[in-house]
């Protein structure tokens, strides 16, 4: 088993890396959706390890795969993301925006090269969102595949709104009720329970706050250490295994649904609407 928990037995049909090249040759015809998990290595309070984003994104993908073993293909996870704003917390690894997008786009372009037509980038780290959006758009414009990205929490906003006890909005952002509940459900012994502390310390505002489920009208990301001493923004003391179970089971259920819809999504060809033949693209880049 490697650091992302890969290879639970070794013959699962849904792990991309389990195949030999000769076996993989047959896979594009099976119309699987390729899942590329992307996380980060980043502080998550005193109570959760640095691998929180990686672990949650990875586990969501693997569980989806177990329930739809013939419909998805899980790529090795990209374990580093965009988070210079967290650098004051020891251990955080920051990849620059452009470097990150280029790396992710190269991975997806290679996947498309081999003939896979549907790629979903599954994100576990909020600050990756705009960059993975760019990467996915580039893949569509630079290959013949369809590529989309999303952070898994987007799939359970309604569930979170219903079961959350944290202040709304602005009380559920990082190492919070949501992430801690998931972690408690999935791997309780790795949560340092005695270290769980609440911290919500941003200046009160009608327009600016941080929340994984209901984002603010204005996007602003100050240095994390200017408003958090523990690394937490939220109230992990409200986290429970039971909430984690509800969140996780719903994410996975909806991911299976999403995968099926995405695979079957009809796609019409591009059409050139010019009256005259275009001369060339003059090196236009997305």
């Amino acid at each position, binding site marked *: 088993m490697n650091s992302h928990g890969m290879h639970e037995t070794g013959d699962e049909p849904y792990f991309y890396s389990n195949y030999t090249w*000769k076996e993989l040759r047959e896979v594009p015809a099976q119309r699987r959706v390729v899942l590329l998990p992307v996380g980060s290595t980043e502080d998550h309070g005193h*109570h959760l390890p640095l691998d929180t984003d990686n672990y949650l994104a990875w586990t969501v993908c693997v569980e989806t795969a177990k329930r739809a073993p013939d419909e998805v293909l899980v790529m090795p996870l990209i374990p580093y993301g965009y988070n210079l704003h967290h650098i004051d917390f020891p251990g955080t690894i920051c990849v620059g925006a452009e*470097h990150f997008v280029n790396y992710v786009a190269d991975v997806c372009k290679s996947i498309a090269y081999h003939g896979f037509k549907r790629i979903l980038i599954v994100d576990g780290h909020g600050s990756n969102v705009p960059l993975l959006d760019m990467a996915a758009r580039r893949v569509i414009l630079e290959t013949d595949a369809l590529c989309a990205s999303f952070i898994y929490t987007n799939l359970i906003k309604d569930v979170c709104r219903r079961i959350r006890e944290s202040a709304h909005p602005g009380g559920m952002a990082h190492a919070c009720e949501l992430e801690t509940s998931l972690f408690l459900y999935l791997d309780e012994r790795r949560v340092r329970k005695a270290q769980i502390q609440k911290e919500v310390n941003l200046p009160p505002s009608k327009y600016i706050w941080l929340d994984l489920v209901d984002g603010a009208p204005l996007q602003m990301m100050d240095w994390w250490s200017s408003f958090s001493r523990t690394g937490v923004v939220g109230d992990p003391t409200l986290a429970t295994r039971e909430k984690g179970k509800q969140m996780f089971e719903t994410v996975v259920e909806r991911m299976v649904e999403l995968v099926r819809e995405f695979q079957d999504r009809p796609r019409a060809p591009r059409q050139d609407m010019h009256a005259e033949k275009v001369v060339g693209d003059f090196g236009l880049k997305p």
Partner: protein
Amino acid sequence: MKAKETYLYNKLTWPEMNDAIELEKVVILPTGSTEQHGRHMPLDVDLFLVESVCHELGRRAPDKVLVLPGIPYGLNMHHLDFPGTIHIQPEHFINFCVDVTKSVAYHGFKRIALVNGHGSNGPMVDLIARRTLLETPSICCAFGYFGMGWVEVLPLLESEIHAHADEFETSLYLHFAKERVQMDQAAPDNDRMGRYMTSDSVSSRPVRFNDFWGRWTKTGVHGDPTKASGAKGKQILEIVMKHMLAWLDEYRTWPIEARQDQHRLPVQREIRW
């Protein structure tokens, strides 16, 4: 203390990471690839082997190292004719990895090493280590784990060519996870050999040359995996470990001295490289 017993970088919390920095642990970044490895082994060979080797080092010296999550994708365009291979452009790979090592240096770790599991990453991990050293106060080095104790490994091997999905890699894989190797599919293969160069740059020829693999092989193998065995893999691992542990002690005590400026007149420090 958690930081003393844990060798996986990612399993610590940030307050525990402060302890790891104080312990002056060596931070190791494994670099792999997702690439075809013949008809007998899966695409994960490079990442799986380099992480397994680094984790074994961690288990044997948990108080001395922290192993980062491995880089799963590397330089591979020359293998692209084989289904599944993932390619990262060289400058994208270098930029991505330098950001990782610089972040590690930022936190105060003074000794960083890249341990490489994919031959074609070699020139790049060298540059990544050099840039990290020149652009931060930390020192950083790079090596392929397969080079550690090579002189002692060589007599264990029966085949003559050692390159890719060969006796060496297959033996190690058999040792770590034999159920995932399809030995009935293993077959030897060789590249086009001239007097000065070969299609896949074996070390016996002076000229570096890396042709598209789709031009000279139908198996994706370079070497003879049929000679591989798990027993050889175990012996190889022990040799690699012996040398990596010795290297680790050397690196931990390697002096980081102050640079000395030998100019007579002041240098132009405002130049931005």
